[in-house]
């Protein structure tokens, strides 16, 4: 018996691997892979939840224990997480420890923010420093939403350098480079270790007022796992300088080498260890993303159907209550997916549930699927002719018989149409699951956008479209079988 308990405990301990998180940009993913592979090499089971979002999502996930560690930057910690300037590294470390979070020594490179323009433009207009932008009012600026919102981002920068520019375009960091090359925007925010700076021949403008703080790369981790990380942290300290990081980014972004291979090569060259990576074939990758995507769609749809049809019936039967229900499900539909996913983190943590992974994705998909089904159930019931309703009443049919034998079967074509709409939307929405690390077809799409790799984007987009079409056909087939022939004549 004791042996059994010991076995169960050891099994459950082993079943709980460490979870590394990374933000949705290449450098973070590469660092995450370096951490994962190094830990696995040391015999510590580790998973990497790639590209699960921006700073807020990662920080919340770390604090709630959904992830155990992730790469971060000192400037971001001060400006965004603690919102407090510190005198030195030790003070920063101490403040984090008070919150139960450990801080590694700097990894070695400083990935600060910078403003970038094309080298050609810099030459033409003789712009080398940020303040020189002042005199070029018609330049178009495009910044990542994070840079637009951050405390150390655009608003303060604009004040400090007295830049007159208005109407800044909010744009995804990876898309911004493409927009710049096409001439749609002139000035972007850069990470100084971005491989694109060299690739696209850009110039990082000099920050002569020292506006941007230092962004030393570090690792944040939960204090309880400090012991396990000891060896890793000491190995990585000071190991990656700016040139190395730019090189790693370049391999991944410019030469499209998968992040785990880039990480494995780095470990081999610098730490002298051979680590195994598992490159999956296209078929394996599709099998994985399809399974993940189907799981998201099917589970969320199952619960949505189970909830929305009764809600639709209530809306049809109880006017006042119904109006309230309709307002709520309609309002949910208008919340942007990303906002909903982030908004779910806190309430989920309250119930002890993970704010990243399948749970928030399933809840969001479930919520988004309600409206079409509720609406169409209502419409289907309302469309039943008045005289047949009255007949059912005079025939003394009970509430249940009326619902089961008359109203729902007669409303079925409309209900099925609602489910079909919800399903097709759901297949599309489910790609957003990748934003919180629940995989699916959104994962290759996100990576493709990040790496500027169209084949990778198509690897997610094409199956998603195909799945939506299959769902549609499947439903047309199902409709033929479920709807009474009497309604189709």
């Amino acid at each position: 018996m004791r042996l059994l308990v010991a076995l169960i405990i050891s099994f459950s301990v082993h079943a709980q691997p460490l979870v590394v998180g990374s933000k949705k940009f290449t450098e973070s993913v590469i660092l995450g892979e370096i951490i994962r592979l190094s830990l696995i090499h040391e015999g510590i089971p580790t998973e990497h939840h790639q590209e699960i979002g921006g700073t807020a999502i990662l920080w919340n996930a770390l604090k709630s224990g959904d992830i155990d560690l992730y790469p971060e930057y000192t400037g971001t910690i001060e400006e965004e997480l603690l919102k407090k300037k510190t005198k030195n590294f030790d003070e920063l470390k101490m403040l984090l420890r008070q919150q139960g979070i450990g801080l590694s020594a700097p990894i070695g490179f400083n990935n600060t923010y910078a403003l970038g323009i094309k080298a050609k433009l810099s030459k033409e207009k003789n712009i080398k420093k940020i303040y020189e932008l002042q005199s070029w009012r018609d330049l178009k600026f495009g910044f990542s939403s994070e840079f637009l919102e951050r405390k150390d981002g655009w608003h303060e920068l604009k004040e400090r350098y007295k830049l007159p520019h208005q109407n800044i375009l909010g744009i995804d960091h990876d898309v911004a480079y493409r927009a710049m090359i096409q001439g749609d925007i002139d000035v972007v925010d850069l990470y100084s270790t971005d491989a694109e700076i060299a690739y696209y021949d850009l110039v990082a403008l000099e920050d002569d007022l020292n506006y941007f703080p230092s962004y030393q790369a570090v690792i944040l981790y939960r204090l309880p796992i400090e012991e396990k990380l000891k060896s890793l942290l000491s190995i990585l300290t000071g190991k990656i300088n700016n040139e190395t990081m730019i090189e790693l980014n370049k391999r991944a972004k410019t030469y499209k080498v998968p992040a785990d291979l880039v990480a494995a090569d780095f470990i081999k060259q610098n730490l002298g260890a051979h680590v195994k990576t598992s490159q999956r074939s296209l078929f394996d990758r599709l099998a994985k993303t399809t399974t993940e995507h189907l799981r998201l769609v099917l589970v969320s749809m199952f619960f949505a159907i189970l909830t929305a049809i009764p809600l639709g019936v209530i809306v049809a039967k109880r006017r006042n209550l119904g109006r309230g229900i309709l307002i709520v499900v309609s309002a949910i539909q208008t919340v942007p997916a990303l906002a909903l996913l982030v908004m779910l983190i806190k309430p989920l943590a309250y119930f002890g549930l993970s704010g990243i992974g399948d749970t928030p994705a399933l809840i969001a998909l479930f919520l988004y699927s309600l409206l079409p089904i509720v609406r169409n159930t209502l419409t289907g019931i309302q469309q039943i002719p008045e005289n047949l309703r009255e007949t059912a009443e005079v025939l003394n049919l009970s509430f249940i018989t009326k619902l089961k034998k008359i109203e729902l079967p007669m409303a079925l074509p409309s209900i099925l149409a609602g489910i079909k709409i919800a399903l097709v939307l759901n297949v599309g929405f489910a790609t957003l699951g990748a934003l919180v690390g629940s995989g699916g077809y959104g994962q290759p799409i996100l990576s493709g956008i990040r790496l500027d790799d169209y084949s990778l984007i198509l690897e997610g987009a094409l199956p998603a479209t195909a799945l939506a079409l299959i769902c549609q056909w499947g439903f047309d087939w199902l409709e033929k079988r479920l709807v009474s022939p009497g309604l189709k004549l």
Partner: protein
Amino acid sequence: MIHIENLKKSLGGKSVLHGLTLDIPVGQSLALLGISGSGKTTLLKCLCGILKPDSGMIQFNSTELKPENVKKIRQTLGYVIQDGGLFPHLTLLENVELIGREANLNDGTISSKTKELASLVKLPFEILHRYPRQVSGGQRQRVGLMRALFLDPSYLLLDEPLGALDPITRYELQNELKELFGRLNKTVILVTHDLTEARRLCQRIVLLNNGVIVQDATMQELIQNPSNDFVRRFLQAQDAI
């Protein structure tokens, strides 16, 4: 017997029935006759409890119709509307059997009752496996009648049952209904605007206009002594005088 006393009903702010009083003895067949908007269908809907009167009273065999006992009283009513009021997604058989199942009758009883009613309304049993839209209007109406008669009600309430039929089918069904009413000895209230139909099927004619009874008589009395100008014009319009 049915006793209606000072019945008033407004719909959408417009008064439709203005204090109607009427007694219908057991076994009598009565036609509620009138033009559109006269209040005849509203009266029928009040009788089967679909509409609640604003004031006044309806009694079935001395029991007043109230929300508490409307289900019980409906068990004694057979209700047929234009085109039979059949549920389109159910086969004719399912439409008829629905009533038996709801009343918890066993399969054997339901099956023998269905066969008996099919022969009563002169429908071949095989046709009952079809859906309403696969049969003619006359056949739908016969099935509607089967369903109404399933629990052997004391009262038959018919709202323009033959309204959607072609003249020949209509004529045939009128004859069959007449024979049926005679045989079953039920109290029948037939809502119609068709004088000929009322004359063929009913002993007593109640002519309504604007929510009041303008004449309550036999067909012969109606033709011989129209009570006012409206009755005269109504009769003239239908070539009765």
